[in-house]
């Protein structure tokens, strides 16, 4: 996939970083670059962080500092289906914790973990701003609204069934 000899990062990202270097305050694009890397690879690996630091001419320590500071960035890969249970206030008040408990017991994993088959990973997310439809769960880009814990196994089964086809 990678045609660039020196970097494992895709050409698209290397080009983007070079474009940033031609702008004013290139180091200010670090967060945007990490967004792009995570968008393509799903998470930020150590080698990619190193390469970003090298390309952008910013100390790796700073890059790592930024990557670990912000909740949005992941340093570990996640499952094919990323389940995010919204833990915002409205969802909390409407029972998001029992939905989360159901996901945990159905999948047999804890928050921040991935199932052994790599199919599902589970995380709690900050408010996604759909408070009026609380509790809300997102699985990849799909939003499930007004979720109750009894629905959890059905949701998972549907995904598994679709996956088998």
């Amino acid at each position: 996939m990678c045609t660039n000899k020196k970097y494992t990062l895709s050409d698209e990202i290397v080009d983007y970083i070079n474009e940033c270097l031609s702008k004013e305050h290139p180091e200010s694009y670090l967060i945007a670059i990490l967004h792009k890397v995570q968008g393509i690879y799903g998470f930020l690996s150590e080698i990619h962080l190193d390469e970003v630091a090298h390309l952008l001419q910013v100390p790796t320590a700073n890059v790592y500092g930024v990557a670990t500071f912000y909740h949005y960035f992941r340093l570990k890969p996640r499952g094919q289906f990323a389940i995010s249970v919204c833990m915002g206030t409205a969802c909390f008040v409407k029972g998001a914790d029992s939905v989360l408990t159901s996901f945990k017991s159905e999948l047999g994993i804890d928050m921040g973990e991935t199932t052994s088959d790599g199919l599902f990973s589970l995380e709690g997310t900050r408010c996604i701003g759909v408070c009026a439809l609380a509790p809300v769960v997102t699985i990849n880009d799909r939003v499930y609204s007004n979720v109750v814990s009894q629905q959890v196994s059905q949701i998972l089964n549907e995904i598994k069934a679709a996956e088998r086809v």
Partner: protein
Amino acid sequence: MPEILKKYGKIKETLDYASTDVKSTGITVIQVGSATCENAAGAEAVKFEFQKLINASGRDNIVIKQTGCTGRCSQEPIVGVFAPDNFPVKYKQVTVDKVAEIFQSHVLGGTPVVSLMLDKNTNIIYDHIITFCETNYEKRPDHLELSELFQERLAHHGISNERVRVLKGGNIGLSRFEDDDQHAVMIVFPENVIYRYETVEAMDEIIKEHIIDKTINQKYLIHTEKLTEEYMKFYGDVSFFNKQSRITLRNCGIIDPENITDYIHAQGFKALALILEKNDPEWIINEILDSGLRGRGGGGFPVGAKWRNTRTLKQDPIKYVICNADEGDPGAFMDRSALEGDPFSIIEGMTIGAFSMGASKGYLYIRAEYPLAIARIENAIKIAREYGFLGKDILGSGFDFDLEIRLGAGAFVCGEETALIHSIEGLRGQPRIRPPYPSLSGLWGHPTCINNVETWANIPPIIIYGAEWFNRIGTVGSKGTKVFALAGKVKNTGLIEVPMGTTLREVIFDIGGGVFGDNQFKAVQTGGPSGGCIPEHLIDTPIDYESLKEVGSMMGSGGMIVLDHTDCMVQTARYFLEFTQDESCGKCLPCREGTLRMLEILERITTGQAVMADLDKLYRLGNMIKKTSLCGLGQSAPNPVLSAIENFREEFEIHIKEHRCPTQKCSKLISYHVIADKCTGCTLCARRCPVLCITGGRKQVHEIIQSQCIKCGECFNVCKFDAIQKI
């Protein structure tokens, strides 16, 4: 030299608004909401279905229009059908299977589907709906509400209330016409005309001419470009909407957010053209100062003063303006809605601000969690550039200004202005000590003005209608309106905008429709993790910056979560503290360590391991953190806990002394038991129990082994026979 206004007029002329205007062309418009929340409720499939039916019908005079969200979240997806000479009809919870009925019956057949209409509690189709602007009625000498008086006169003329519906509205944005207590102002639908008059005789005259003879009374008719004309036209008959006053959200749910034609038709970029024509930055700053607008991000700093400081404190050729759209408060979504529903107004507000302060570059700092908002604002920036409202030499004025989007990455503390600046610079989003304030030394050391989305969206109307108009809305110290995200245990969840000074009761019970399931109201949490819980006896508190502070909460960004008697205040306090503790950036000790210690104490209380001395310690610690933390996050983090202790001390004491949670929400303080009479022995709970602590085989009464139970509640949730009891 009215060159700029002329140029603006020319752009407006070139835009083909008529093609989507119901009135001028006789077409029917089907309006489908399109925002994150609408899409989550299934709006996209609905839009697709309507398009299919339109194609199949072969009619070319039916069009679909997408809009942002109107704020009526619990009834989404909302679909509006606007046919010529008819009331705009709004349908609620339109799922794909309801589309065909609406299309056949209403769009093609002309008969609205009454059962699906929004907030429709009657089958009557009225001849007229009349909305009164009743902000001043209590000041009238006779104390009789105008709408009541009007109904009396209608009855006098023998007109039944099945023909005419009379409603009370709030401040309906009639700018210059709401200035005195003597005049009545009312809008009559579907003609959408406004009458203003003083006497009962005039009222009679209007009834005779308009209602009986069906001609418009020219004597009392007023013509005004009103801020919320389109809004009232579409939603004026629904009480959820007409109790509100919309300035920030004036276009949300009305215009197509991806179409500049719609925005310009709603007076978009007019304010920008006006100020460029006037070419007087000081005038703009004075207008904003005189308007009394305060920052809507939570702090409430006077906007005009911030602008003046940025303009004058330092002579620097480089200055920046920033829009803070890092809406990190869990439970608030007004910024998302404004960005998704009316992105151009934020661009316009920022451009006006930049001109007044001498900035030529602006940044929009948006949460990465809002992909649709990002796409909408990106699109709006691109279009605004194409039309010359952004970029070099804006409208031929010689003024250059451009915008760049920067994404946040999920850090609550980045809502703090110095942390946000660090984040834009590509660093960890940690705050620094102020002063120097950003207006002196901000982004890369240059003077910088940061305002949030709602603040920027307020700027264009203030310029168009003037500071005096804005200054009349609200209370002495808090002017204008405020948007709230109403959620939690309330019937009508959604986004609302009310004048400052409206009481919490009016918001929750009049607009919100009261507590969900008619449960007992317990408290309302305002201001998110920085705010506090306001108990029932303080529910008549007016909403303004100072009053909310007095009762131990704050305006914050505008989250408003309603709690009912089933909610545990200790749990709620713990929830917010867990959030701020997690989001604490770790730079200063009081916030980093203090919030953790507070959380530990709360943990002990919710698990029944605390002693009474812990409660005093918690209170003292909270106040210490407030006084000594570096930034706003730490200074306000203890608020939810402190206000909960002040208002619900008894509930804390029951947890500590009796090891009991009155609302059965603290899992460690409750236990689950099988009700033998109801248990059918289906084994579902036993199979689902994660620690396998439920005994009893098929058709045997089950039993929970208390010593092994982890109190996850799974058995309680899955039991189909209500045979599990929580004690």
